[in-house]
């Protein structure tokens, strides 16, 4: 009889968050859906407690190497919890107004999705990785369509469902081929078996390339990496704005960690000189380049802030993938660090868009005219977030881009880094355009915007994160370096 190690201690944070999601739903029903704020606060409290639990219970492997609670997982779990926290915090306006009948389900589904991301980031094995990915995306389909009476939102949900199902199928086909080649679903064993197979047969053949391409395509759909990005703008525009924010940060971070686990861990052998012909790095590098170009150029022409941020997030993933293709310790650390800075800036920018939309019902950029006079604090926050997304020093986005580019140069991807620099200049134009609209155009200055305390907390977290970690990035960077050390890369 084999021995099993079920260290249940390690999944306490996930179990707690799952139970908490049920508590939130039941609380909402039993309070007869009267309290508009307490459900939200309860959700935020649950996320905070999970973070504390995570700090206490991590480090180790459980469930026969299926659940690995390592530093990389910890790092990304902090990002997931942070993005869920900020998404929930900016949802109070819409919870008291637009989704009155389903507040509990709304928050509960956000928590379910977060649980999925947490499982995904810890999984060291293809089946649990896939299941985690499904748990991440299925609640998001529903959340995207949560405004049932709005055509755009239903369309967003439908599109996301179809694309999500299709990409899962492609990914699953790729993963099953990989299993066929190696006879195992454990990523560490896949690495060993592929090397053995290659050494004994001298070649593996084009089937593996097909598997790699399909896995890349499947995950790229989730990441909205060009050319698999077409769904993103429509879904981002139609979904409730906090969900858009959660999609663009949380679910992207989940895709990134899945990518890192599969490619940088399981298929690492194929960036070695011996097996170089089957290298996946170059495919991803070209896609990253396309993402930077397409995302930034298309963002120039957008008049809706959510669409603009959607295209900008496509471009941001392009920058992020520079760190991934570098396949070095610095590269993986830079990916984590970039995601962390992106969390604050992007969640913050979407929070401002949510607050503005709750008040005015509009998300077109031209309606931001003269916002600096009617809501100076809000526009200052927006300006800071957008400047950070551009990568202006001394904000967090600058440090993030700097480190990603450094990793790219170290790995010899000069052309990619140069393209990144050039497209950053393009990005400056459309981000600055919003700031210009807020500060230098006249609009109705009698607009009165009351920011809900929870949304205020989100903005404060975002601004502090962007500024403090921009000036003093060492703690996060060290944390990221420590998490990247896991892969034992050069």
């Amino acid at each position, binding site marked *: 009889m084999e021995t099993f190690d079920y260290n249940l201690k390690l999944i306490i944070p996930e179990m707690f968050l799952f139970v908490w999601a049920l508590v939130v739903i039941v609380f909402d029903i039993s309070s007869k859906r009267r309290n508009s704020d307490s459900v939200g606060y309860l959700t935020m409290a649950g996320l905070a407690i999970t973070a504390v639990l995570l700090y206490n219970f991590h480090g180790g492997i459980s469930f026969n190497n299926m659940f690995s609670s390592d530093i990389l997982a910890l790092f990304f779990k902090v990002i997931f919890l942070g993005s869920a926290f900020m998404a929930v915090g900016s949802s109070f306006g819409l919870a008291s107004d637009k989704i009155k009948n389903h507040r509990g389900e709304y928050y509960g589904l956000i928590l*379910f999705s977060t649980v999925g991301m947490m499982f995904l980031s810890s999984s060291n094995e293809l089946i649990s990785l896939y*299941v985690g990915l499904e748990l991440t995306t299925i609640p998001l389909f529903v959340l995207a369509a949560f405004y049932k009476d709005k055509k755009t939102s239903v369309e967003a949900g439908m599109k996301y469902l179809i694309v999500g199902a299709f990409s899962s199928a492609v990914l699953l086909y790729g993963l099953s081929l990989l299993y066929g*080649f190696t006879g195992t679903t454990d990523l560490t064993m896949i690495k060993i078996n592929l090397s053995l197979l290659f050494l004994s047969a001298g070649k593996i053949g084009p089937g593996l390339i097909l598997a790699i391409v399909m896995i890349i395509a499947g995950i790229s759909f989730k990441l909205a990496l060009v050319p698999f990005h077409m769904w993103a703008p429509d879904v981002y525009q139609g979904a409730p704005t906090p969900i858009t924010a959660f999609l663009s940060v949380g679910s992207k971070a989940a895709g990134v960690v899945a990518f890192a686990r599969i490619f940088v861990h399981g298929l690492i052998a194929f960036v070695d000189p011996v097996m170089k012909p089957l290298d996946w790095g170059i495919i991803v590098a070209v896609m990253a380049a396309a993402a930077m170009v397409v995302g930034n150029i298309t963002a120039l022409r957008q008049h809706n802030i959510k669409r603009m941020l959607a295209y900008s997030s496509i471009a941001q993933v392009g920058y992020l993938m520079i760190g991934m293709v570098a396949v070095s310790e610095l590269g993986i650390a830079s990916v984590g660090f970039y995601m962390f800075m992106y969390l604050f800036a992007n969640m913050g920018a979407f929070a401002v868009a949510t607050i503005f939309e709750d008040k005015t019902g509009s998300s077109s950029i031209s309606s931001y005219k003269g916002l600096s006079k009617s809501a100076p604090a809000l526009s200052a926050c927006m300006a800071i977030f957008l400047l950070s997304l551009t990568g202006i020093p001394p904000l967090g986005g600058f440090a993030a881009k700097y480190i990603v580019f450094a990793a790219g140069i170290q790995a010899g991807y000069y052309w990619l880094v140069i393209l990144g620099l050039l497209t950053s200049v393009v990005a400056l134009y459309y981000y600055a355009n919003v700031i210009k609209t807020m500060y230098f155009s006249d609009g109705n200055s009698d607009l009165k915007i009351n920011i809900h305390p929870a949304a205020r907390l989100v903005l404060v977290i975002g601004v502090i994160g962007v500024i403090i970690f921009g000036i003093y990035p060492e703690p996060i960077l060290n944390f990221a370096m420590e998490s990247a050390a896991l892969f034992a890369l050069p």
Partner: protein
Amino acid sequence: MFGVEVSQLFFYLLSFIIIVSAIYVVSLRNIFHCALFLVLCLFSVAGIYILLEAEFLAAVQVLIYVGAVSILMIFAIMLTSRLANKKIMQSNDNVTVAIFVCAGFLLTSLGSFGYTVWKVVDSPLPENNTLTIGKLLMTDYVLPFEVVSIVLLAAMIGAIVLARREKI
């Protein structure tokens, strides 16, 4: 089980049924007939699983896909009066592009599988693989097994939220 020739004969027969019925599913104009052909298609896939000595998979295929999913679809069609007896178009302007893309993908995958070194397991399959699968699901794979139940719960809550009629 069968002799090699007989099982090969069955394989080709089943594959033929699968391909033909799958083509009917995506091309017929009466959606009810499409659903019936889908049942046939999924049922034949279960037959392929039996030929591969994956009895458990075959049973699951029949129970879930042939039993639950298809019946549910047929119910949905019959209860939706708009769909039941109406002719629908199953293709749009992109059909040529789609055919090229699918054919390209088919040829690429066939070609690349042909030139590939596959890992071959020499040891015979376990006698009672349903038992083995059951054991594995409750031991090695217990975590994903349990997480799947959370997925189902989330999907159920989501479906109820979306399908519920709102009080105005």
